[in-house]
């Protein structure tokens, strides 16, 4: 009896997973083009930083085989480029396009009602859907990713990191997926209280872009007059982009690395819990108002 219940559950999620994958595969051309496009900004960034490093390095070194020899905030030119490439990987895990607005729309047009009627959990549904979408994405994107990293191999001056660092890197990526998911889900769920979350989404996007290290390594943030660099340490955003990349490049090492990982776990649990609370409260409020 109990076992078959679990079996039903599993079948339901599996079916749902398959539907999500199918849905994703329909727009194939969009997909391939979209993936390749992702690397275009990195290309301009390489040239931008190349020019910047050129102006602070020994004359002539910029066009030598070794590249410009200057350093900015402890980042050599190679580090800088490697950083941006790694951030693309972090963001491939942690970014959740359309999640917030999707939830907000469901609340606004009353579609959430179906989760009150059917024995399905909305957050669970969305999570399965995301996993499916991401998997399809990695399936198709792995090839262009491999190509770009192979071509950009020379920027990774220190080569492949040791096993423990690689382990932390991979785990932090998986956690960044969960963190991104629950963080955005929480923002989406706020729409139970404020119908218009577009501006909120925008602020979130802005903050992530700036404080997650997506735009530049957090080391560049000024410590004076306000200690922005120290400030971001207390926020969850850095785990969405900066942390995995910094681990890989050895910018965060030893105890700092393990502490960081532990903090990331705590953030994930916090937002997981918060999203549950918001959902419970939100639904209560929603049905209280009669939809």
């Amino acid at each position, binding site marked *: 009896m109990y076992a078959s219940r679990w079996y039903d559950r599993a079948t339901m999620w599996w079916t749902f997973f398959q539907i999500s994958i199918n849905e994703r595969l329909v727009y194939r*051309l969009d997909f391939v083009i979209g993936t390749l496009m992702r690397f275009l900004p990195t290309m301009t960034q390489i040239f931008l930083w190349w020019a910047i490093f050129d102006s*602070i390095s020994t004359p002539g070194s910029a066009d030598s085989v070794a590249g410009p020899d200057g350093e900015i905030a402890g980042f050599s030119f190679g580090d800088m480029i490697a950083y941006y490439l790694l951030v693309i990987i972090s963001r491939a895990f942690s970014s959740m396009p359309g999640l917030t607005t999707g939830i907000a729309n469901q609340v606004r047009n009353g579609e959430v009602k179906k989760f009150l009627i059917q024995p399905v959990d909305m957050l669970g549904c969305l999570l399965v859907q995301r996993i499916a979408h991401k998997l399809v994405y990695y399936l198709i994107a792995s090839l262009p990713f491999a190509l770009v990293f192979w071509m950009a191999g020379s920027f990774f001056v220190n080569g492949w990191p040791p096993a423990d660092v690689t382990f932390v890197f991979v785990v932090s990526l998986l956690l960044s997926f969960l963190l991104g998911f629950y963080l955005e889900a929480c923002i989406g769920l706020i729409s139970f209280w404020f119908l218009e979350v577009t501006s909120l989404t925008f602020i979130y996007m802005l903050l992530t872009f700036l404080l997650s290290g997506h735009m530049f390594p957090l080391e560049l943030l000024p410590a004076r007059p306000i200690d922005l660099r120290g400030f971001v340490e207390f926020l969850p955003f850095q785990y969405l982009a900066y942390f995995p990349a910094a681990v890989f490049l050895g910018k965060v090492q030893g105890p700092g690395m393990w502490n960081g990982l532990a903090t990331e776990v705590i953030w994930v649990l916090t937002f997981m819990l918060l999203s549950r609370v918001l959902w419970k409260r939100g639904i209560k409020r929603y049905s209280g108002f009669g939809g």
Partner: protein
Amino acid sequence: MLKAHDAKQIPQKSTGLPHEAGIAEQVMRKPSYLNVFLTFAKNSMIRDMSFRMNFILQCISSLSWAAMNYGLFKIIYQFSDSIGRRTGWGESEFFIFLGTIWIINSLIQTFFMANATEFSEMIRTGNLDFALLKPIDTQFLISFPRVNWAQLANAFLGLAVIIFYENELLHDPDKQMNFTIWSVPAFIFFVLCGTVVMYSVMITLAATSIWMGRNQNLHNFWFYITNFYRYPMEIYERGIGWALWGTFTFVIPILVVSNVPARVLAQPMGGHWGIWDWTLASISVVAAAGSLVASRWVFRMALKSYRSASS
């Protein structure tokens, strides 16, 4: 079987309508494109004003994006005093460049972005039908209906930044700026040329959704292609960058779009144009005219393939 284009072989038929006499006069009437555009602009304004909060938030958000961009380069100029060695893009010059980009982007977003997106949407939903019914140029009709006034905020910000840093440059004894009475009209002219190029690229992209089905990536694609024109073209002048430089100067001249007007105001060579400056300027003009013609051609081809959603 009769082919569609043989239709002319059917003899012209009378209409037999009661108000036949009025038709000649009716046929003569041409819509005033200016009036139609002004109505678009006015209607959009009415709409924006009925969602005032949203309008303000939009202004704030686009301004904060610009501010963030500004912040990034403020940080970069803490570490270096120029982008590229001896390229002439010091802090003041670069911020004039940035201001120029903001103005062009803002013009595109104010007048065309929403419309291009809406155009792909119309193709998907079949609402393009209505545009095709109207006795007015279809490309005009779909290019202008929404004016997104909130996005104009960045143009003003760009203008302010340009004025501030131009002033810095003119008072810097080390720089020999050559700012003449012609600099301003030249700047405006090349900004407009650039806007036309970007508009053409955009509408061409949007039109491709007729063949590609749902074109979700239009926005992304736009974001990515504009990535290349956000920086001075000198940064590409090395290694394989030359390929990009060549492509985006001569083939899809988006580098020219931003660089020409910015150079007019920011580069020390200001008033004395060398052969290269003249070349770039002419590319800009030719590109504006050429891309506009090309976009019209693609647009027509696209309409031919349009099959209208659902039967």
